[in-house]
């Protein structure tokens, strides 16, 4: 039984069908990649799964429970975290503060307990430690006090991943984490992703960097114009005519240029 089961997800914007009846499964502990040319509906698919955009049809089951159309924060709290294509960081706050806000999920403190500061210090100290650990896991511990807006692009991506981790997810959806990274930064990202997968978190990654995809993905889902055109292991996908056609256009498909 797969950890994340997507069945027939569809989303229409006026005349355009951005996501057209997409179904796929993600198995616990694996790394799945989602690829496809620009405008294939990858980000929209992520938004439908994670509750940032309500689907017109279809369903999503996470760990056996139906989560279709739930509010985004509830889905995150049930263990399905995500990052964004253009990072949504808290620009004025430090890296530590950014991660700590997500780590706060563990701190039981409503308005009343916080106002009276009753027994909070323990929970809060724990959430700060958790935040520091995650910064180390993501390999950006030395940026802890830096303001998010002052950090280099690659580090910001890793910070957003660390922040998503702080919600103790079982599955994490990463929306083009390698976009705009140079070789070395991509290497650091790959190492971080392996460490996260080894820590038991299932990963679903939207990516254009084929090198990265081929290296880390155990299974690849290919979208074109909103529809699923292929799904399977990297080697199979590499030779799939439909995939090549989608990416490189007709003539190359049969000639294999």
């Amino acid at each position: 039984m797969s950890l994340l089961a997507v069945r027939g997800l569809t989303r229409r914007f006026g005349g355009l069908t951005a996501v057209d009846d997409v179904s796929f499964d993600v198995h616990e502990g694996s790394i799945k990649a989602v690829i496809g040319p620009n405008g294939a509906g990858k980000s929209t698919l992520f938004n439908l799964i994670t509750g940032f955009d309500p689907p017109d049809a279809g369903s999503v089951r996470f760990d056996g429970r139906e989560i279709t159309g739930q509010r985004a924060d509830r889905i995150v709290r049930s263990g399905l975290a995500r990052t964004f294509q253009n990072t949504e960081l808290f620009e004025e706050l430090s890296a530590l503060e950014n991660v700590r806000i997500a780590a706060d999920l563990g701190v039981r403190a409503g308005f009343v307990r916080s106002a009276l500061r009753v027994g909070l210090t323990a929970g809060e100290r724990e959430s700060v430690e958790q935040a520091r650990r995650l910064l180390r896991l993501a390999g950006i511990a030395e940026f802890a006090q830096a303001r998010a807006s002052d950090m280099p692009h690659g580090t910001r991506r890793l910070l957003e991943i660390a922040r998503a981790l702080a919600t103790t997810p079982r599955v994490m959806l990463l929306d083009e984490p390698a976009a705009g990274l140079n070789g070395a930064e991509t290497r650091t990202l790959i190492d971080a992703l392996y460490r996260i997968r080894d820590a038991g978190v299932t990963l679903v990654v939207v990516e254009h960097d084929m090198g990265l995809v081929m290296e880390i993905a155990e299974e690849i889902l290919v979208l074109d114009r909103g529809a699923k055109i292929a799904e399977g292991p990297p080697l199979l996908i590499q030779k799939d005519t439909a995939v090549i056609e989608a990416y490189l256009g007709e003539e190359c498909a049969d000639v294999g240029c």
Partner: protein
Amino acid sequence: MIRTRLAFSPYVAIAIAAAAVAAVPVLSPDRYLLKVLVYVGVNVIVIAGLALLFGHAGQISMGHAAFVGIGAYTSAYCVGHVGLPWLVGALAGTALAAAGGLVLALPALRLRGHYLAMATLGFNEIMYVAFREARGITGGGDGLGGISYPEVAGLSIDSPVGVYLLVWGVALVVLLLVANILRSRPGRAMRALHATENGALACGIDTVGLKIRTFALSAGLAGLAGALYAHSVGFISPGTFGLDQSVIYVAIVVVGGAGSLAGPVLAAIALTLLPYADALIPGLGKDAVALLQDWEADIYGIAMIAVVILAPAGIGGLLTRLRIGRAGEAHV
């Protein structure tokens, strides 16, 4: 990095503040100063609530004077007409204002920026009509006079010093509670919501619940301030709770600096005292006073512009630069 600075325990700071509040009437038994400081204390409570909602959570409200009005009229009615003790009236005023906050939170779930400003502004104008027309309860356009002094546990607080101590006692407690909230998880969640709602959602923050609770708490504090004001001043009229007062409250929070609490509180004290400066600055000649009074509105406008131009991050921003705070540390 072990913090080596002398960490004041919060209780020491509270003791110092309470001592200062108590010392004022002893140092200067002047009734005028105490009455003006009551106005300041009331505004500090309103601004503490608005700094939470607008400064930290980024939800603009141009209707806060209406909440003050709800608190004031409700407690005046409960005590005056229904004969309830002041404490019950004040709590009723706070609760009703908080309920008003809940109602106003609904549009906030769908509206952003200027549109939310207009919705809250509309609420303020509608409440102004309600205060003016519900003559049975509010005394209508002429206002409601003869409101009794606050009375706690059977003891009527009717001396200027007593009223001052009550208002500032409540103000200190409110400041401490709000400061604690801002330093804890809800405070951080508000700053996250202010930065990016999607980012906050991605951190598992229930932004809908947060907006509703923050609106209700902020409005409740305004209602509490209204209840204190009505019974310390003894006379309220719809004009006191009009739109231009709500605009002033928003300006105070911006001048104070959106990211802090000490900044807006200082701005509230300064901008509430400004209209009374002519009487507070010692040694002013008669015509200097008349001149100051005549040009007071201009000075007020220019002072606001000057502060936000010189210190875009507001007074709070200045305070942080003075204190070598860590970058991005939420300064409260």
